[in-house]
């Protein structure tokens, strides 16, 4: 800033307050720079230059602010578009579940009639995608929940598969991961490496051994064929070991010096410290097995034992009106889990990336 000391035309002497010309001001929390006051005589030309310089600074600053605002606006728009795309199918499923059955068959009959060989009940040839149903009704839910036990039964099947797998896989793998994280040695390193390799194999590969064992143990076409490989899946071992390794050795050693034996170190020290990890892994296992398709269609030839995830795709056109309601019912449980454990889930994924671990 330039102040005129006298109003003569020659601008003999000015006091110049000059801020340092670097970018310190842009950094949040940086101390404001000292303003240097100096006495100096300027000519008119110099002052003009000075003013031009400062104007340029101000212009630049404003431009930068504008760009920043623009960036945020563009970012928000991108996020908005993506979130619409991401949420659209979910929202559509939910809103369509409130349609009456006749409305659904008139809207989507054209699609699903082609997949069945049955009679043609649809009215229009084109597909009407509607966001909001004409008449909001709960009849779909009523029929799905009280009139057709097949869906509830399959839903129950899903629960029966998922809950023991989550519980026992966590139990087995928390033991194992404690064993892996404690006293590492060459043998354990090799075993752990094999676990990682098995974890990375796609289902196409691991299902073949699973099938052979199930056949050998004579548990094919029973629930055990799903339960047992699920319980011993190495995924949770790998994840939990990552969490367990984060516990400082000194904590465990302190517990031992205080007289705790290995079991009570595990139950009273290691497990409580890994609580967040256990919850997040439980969520990840839950999603994976709630979604399972490959295992049931190969290991269970009996439709009776199939979970809802497989059964939903086999819905026939006569019951198509129920499909959306059943889909929503199937979606509710994972969504509740998600709402409850989002933070844990994010933490778990973060650990999975190994950025923290």
């Amino acid at each position, binding site marked *: 800033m330039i102040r005129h000391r006298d109003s003569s035309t020659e601008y003999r002497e000015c006091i110049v307050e000059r801020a340092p010309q670097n*970018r310190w001001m842009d950094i949040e929390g940086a101390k404001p720079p000292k303003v240097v006051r100096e006495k100096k005589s300027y000519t008119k030309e110099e002052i003009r230059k000075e003013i031009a310089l400062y104007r340029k600074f101000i212009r630049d600053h404003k431009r930068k602010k504008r760009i920043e605002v623009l960036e945020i606006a563009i970012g928000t728009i*991108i996020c908005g578009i993506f979130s619409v795309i991401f949420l659209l*199918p979910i929202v559509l499923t939910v809103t369509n579940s409130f349609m009456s059955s006749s409305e659904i068959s008139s809207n989507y009959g054209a699609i699903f009639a082609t997949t069945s060989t049955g009679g043609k009940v649809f009215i229009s040839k084109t597909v009407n995608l509607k966001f909001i149903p004409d008449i909001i009704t709960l009849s779909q839910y009523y029929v799905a929940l009280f009139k057709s036990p097949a869906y509830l039964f399959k839903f129950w099947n899903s629960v029966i598969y998922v809950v023991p797998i989550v519980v026992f896989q966590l139990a087995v793998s928390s033991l*194992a991961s404690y064993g892996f994280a404690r006293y590492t040695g*060459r043998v354990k390193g090799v075993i752990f490496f094999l676990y990682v390799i098995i974890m990375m194999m796609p289902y*196409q590969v*691991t299902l073949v051994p699973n099938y052979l064992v199930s056949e050998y143990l004579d548990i094919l076409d029973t629930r055990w064929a799903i339960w047992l490989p699920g319980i011993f899946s190495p995924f949770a071992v790998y994840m939990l070991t990552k969490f367990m390794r984060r516990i400082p*050795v000194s904590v465990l050693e302190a517990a031992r010096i205080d007289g705790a034996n290995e079991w009570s170190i595990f139950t009273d020290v290691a497990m409580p410290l890994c609580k967040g990890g256990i919850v997040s892994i439980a969520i990840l296992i839950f999603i994976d097995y709630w979604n399972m398709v490959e295992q049931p269609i190969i290991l269970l030839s009996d439709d009776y034992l199939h979970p809802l995830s497989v059964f939903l795709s086999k819905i026939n056109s006569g019951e198509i009106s129920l499909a959306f309601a059943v889909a929503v019912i*199937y979606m509710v449980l994972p969504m509740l889990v998600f709402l409850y454990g989002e933070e844990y889930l994010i933490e778990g994924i*973060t650990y999975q990336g190994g950025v923290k671990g």
Partner: protein
Amino acid sequence: MKALKSLNDLLSANARQKTTKEAPGRHTKSLSQPKYMPVRFKDMALSFLFIIPSLIGVVLFFGAPFGVVIFYSLVNNPTRCEFVGLSNFSRVLHNSAFLMAARHTMVFSAIAVPLAVVLSLLLAIVLENKIPGRSAFRSMFLSPMMVPIASIVLIWQVLFHYNGLVNQVIGIVGIDKIDWLKSDQAHFVIIALFLWKNLGYNMILFMAALSSVPEDQLEVARLENANAWQTFWYVKFRYLSSTIVFVALMSLINSFKVFREIYLMTGDYPYDALYILQHYMNNKFRNLDYQDLSAAAILMSGVMVVLVAVLFAIEEHVGKDVENS
């Protein structure tokens, strides 16, 4: 991925020392340096007891039967057990169905994995800015991961039907209608579904990596008057490289799981373009053709191991300059 790196450390039996090392230069015999700490044999044996339940299960359901799979792939018949060398493999490799399935799977992975990495990185960078409602957006992007595919498949069928919404939208632009699920365009539908499901998960991984970039380095970049692109490319990208490899790996693994989506959308017998390896395996399971099953499984696991090894090699190569992060 750090896992394998730490695994290598493990194999050289100094992982614990590395992860809990205190300030360098301090060579006291502290407890956190087990190199100097005698590990009692009893403790070692005890810690093995913890592993045993899981180990039994893994050996029983994955390890031992895999040995049987290798055995089956080398004999002509499970009951007669005559050694036939590699003829099973050559038969599978000359099977046109297997080749088609393998080609489709590879094409799908080759398109979907890079897309998944780039798009999710883009989303993570966008979300890293001070956008209003960041955490809400994050939840929205993550929610497809939690939705069961079976629930959402109905609406995807509606969207991509010949008379569906997508065709109506591209009809406005002036493109002819495409029968998405019954033509070669079916790949795009499945890729869209795959991205829809996996982007949020990858994005979280990238966001974690971005937030772990040291603040002082970013500050230096800012002081040096680096623009956004330079900051990203010369500073952040170095710290992201290992995460990029990890995300690519996870996307690759998940891209092999895309059978779920295809099966739920199109049933047992999809359009040819969607015939992937799992369909081939299903057919073989149905016929109980153990030789082909075993040979195909071993071929696939071989390819998988090679791919993973390549990714790790890349990671080793690019992750070098930020080793001490």
